[in-house]
């Protein structure tokens, strides 16, 4: 019995979508999630990966099928069918990608909002007295919602080829970032020379550190551990070795580290 092509197309489409969903949910290419931001980020990644897998498998499948099904046999001379266009079909494959990218755009807008990226950074919440304009990425929302007293504010100075972390509260300066878990951290970052970037892959966070233009980044670490801090902007010959670490500790452990390093002035 001949299976009608519409039914076959429908079945193939469903298999494709289910397969894509399965790939998107099962395969994980990302490192450990160690911040609130990472949890939200990974949701977006899964959605993008699922849509991408469906599109890629679908288009490549169609291409390979065409190449096999419609290849020219050796003894065949002549042309294919003279079809120059099909308006409904073209409207269909303009509208469907438009809807898909609109969905992707709106969804990532929502994710970005949840990361706290939409709030304009008109002024610095931490150093109210300073009038200099602060630029930044994600995390402003979390500052607004938290009480300022609970925010741990750290100053980051980047230079060729190191990061320096200064805790104004305890007057501590370190080359390694120590933060407590489950508390909002705000980094106020300045560069001494060229552009650097502060990146913690496990936090899914990155912000350029720009000379002459301080930037700000907020995050909440969730999983105690030791994670790399990587400079992601070409900053000179030793760019590759400009690495540090962020140590996320339980609040108690962090408190004792903080107390033991605080300078009594």
């Amino acid at each position, binding site marked *: 019995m001949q299976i009608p092509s519409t039914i076959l197309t429908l079945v193939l489409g469903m298999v494709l979508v289910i397969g894509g969903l399965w790939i998107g949910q099962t395969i994980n*290419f990302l*490192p450990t999630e160690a911040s609130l931001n990472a949890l*939200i*980020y990974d949701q977006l990644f899964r959605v*993008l990966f699922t849509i991408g897998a469906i599109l890629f498998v679908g*288009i*490549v499948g*169609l*291409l390979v099928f*065409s*190449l096999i099904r*419609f*290849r*020219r046999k050796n003894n*065949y*001379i*002549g*042309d*294919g*069918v003279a*079809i*120059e*266009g*099909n308006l409904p079909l*073209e409207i269909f*494959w*303009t509208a469907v*990608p*438009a809807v898909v*990218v609109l969905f992707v*755009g709106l969804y*990532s807008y929502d994710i*970005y909002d949840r*990361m706290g*990226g939409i709030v*304009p950074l008109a002024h610095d919440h931490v150093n109210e007295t300073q009038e200099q304009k602060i*630029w*930044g*990425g994600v995390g402003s929302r979390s500052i607004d919602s938290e009480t300022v007293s609970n925010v741990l504010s750290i100053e980051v100075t980047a230079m060729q080829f190191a990061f320096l972390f200064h805790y104004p509260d305890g007057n501590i300066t370190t080359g390694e970032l120590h933060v407590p878990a489950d508390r909002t951290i705000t980094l106020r970052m300045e560069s001494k*020379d*060229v*552009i650097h*970037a502060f*990146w913690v*892959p496990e936090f899914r966070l*990155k912000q*350029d550190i*720009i*000379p*002459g*233009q301080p930037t700000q980044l907020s995050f909440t670490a969730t999983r105690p551990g030791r994670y790399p801090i*990587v*400079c*992601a*902007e*070409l900053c*000179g*010959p030793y760019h*590759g*070795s400009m690495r540090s670490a962020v140590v996320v500790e339980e609040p108690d452990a962090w408190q004792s580290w903080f107390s033991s390093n605080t300078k009594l002035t």
Partner: protein
Amino acid sequence: MTATIASRGTGPRPRLQPTGWLRYFSFSVDHKVIGLQYLVCGFVFYLVGGALAGAIRTELISPVADFMARDVYNQVLTLHGTVMIFLWIVPVVNGAFGNYLIPFYVGARDMAFPRLNAVAFWLIPPAGLLLVASYFITGAAQSGWTAYPPLSVTTPATGQIIWILSVLLLGGSSIFGGINFIATILKLRQPGLKLMQMPMYCWAMLGTSILVIASTPVLAGTLVLLSFDIVAHTGFFNPALGGNVVVYQHLFWFYSHPAVYIMVLPAFGLVSEILPVHARKPLFGYVTMVYSIMGIVVLGLIVWAHHMFTSGTPPWMRLFFTIATTFIAVPTGIKFFNWLATLWGGRISLNSAVLFSCGFIVNFVLGGITGVALAQVPFDIHVHDTYFVVAHFHYIVFGGSVFIIFASVYHWYPKFTGRMLNEDLGRFHCMLTFIGFNLCFGPQHWLGLNGMPRRVSEYDPQFTLINQISSVGALLMAISTLPFLWNVIQSAISGKIAGDNPWNALTPEWLTSSPPPVQNWAGETPLVEEPYGYGVPINAIDLSATSGRDLWRSGK
């Protein structure tokens, strides 16, 4: 009287021009000679850029910086990027194929400004030599092909200044070329040839040239300001003197994002010429293809800030550029569906040109998907400036443009030389390139997601294995050029004689001899008509027609 008129022709005067193969080494004004000069010169620089890529991948076999000095590594990566973009892809997809094909496609005997055309080409070899020589003189620029200040202002000045000069020359060449293409397409079209009847590559080159003319001068101006900062210690971009480094990024990406379309739009045009011929079908959806090119041109000019999502860009700007960038996927998607529909129901001959084109479709779809992902601010924040971006970018420009350059060489080589390339070697070349390419750049997506930044000569040892796999892929790609080089040289000497139209194609360059005479057609210019009229039923053909393609259609 007739003789006088004939001698007033605008073409080159044969007496002053060398003939035979020597003319390819002369200051010829013949568009075909200039086109092949672009192609061969570009390929030489491809080998240079490839050798630099090989050096990069050799360094990255081990996680420590042990193969070359760290500043040399930065010079190598800067040269690699600059050579591949400005001396290989842009000159070849635009200059080489544009010059060779556009006059044929509009039914002209040469470009609108033949001498300007020669000037545009002859700016390239000195600019390229200057750039490469800077490495041997004082050391090349080492701030990446993006030359972000303040790094480009603080690294050794001589290399950086030579880099700027070289890019300015190449930008000038590009602008001259763009003006020439627009004038040729709009003004030298045969009477009666409507815009909507031109072969698709003309549209692609029209769109590309608009982008070139709109954006390249911005890059030139920016680089002049940057050179002032370096030489005269002005403070346009240098924050130590009150400058703003982010302004440079805006100006730089205003050119350099469209530059991606300057590299891929012509490739879109070329693949639109190749697929119908070998699938024996008309190009599907001509009108939507044209609109999608123009959609890409318009959108391509308003997406630059997506390279700056981590540069302290204000939130409203991030949203605008996210949406604009995401929407480029729609016209691009239309083109891919149309190519698939062109293949569907065809009589596809699986030769090297088609295999490379299909490799392009596979690679570009993946590059496009990661591109849409990168347009999303939250996604980009994690992977910006990592190997994920390196992988994405190479899927677009190597998997896209370079695959199409090879497809085009296999397709048009019979026209260039009058001889056929060896198909077995061609398929072997394609297979090796495809496997090597995916082995090299596929795993780099994982590297980027997991924490390897780009432009580093040393990295976390956990990434060693993946980097070694990537380097093996790069080695395969390097090896894959050998059968190609052998094929091109060997076939030029003793390849099978091609005849005028070995593919039985309908576009006008195949209506003349192979290789074509100096003025393109020996006698009258043939009428440029339906370039994709494949598969028209025999009874619809006027059997009294005498041109070769009508005879092919009628099956005689």
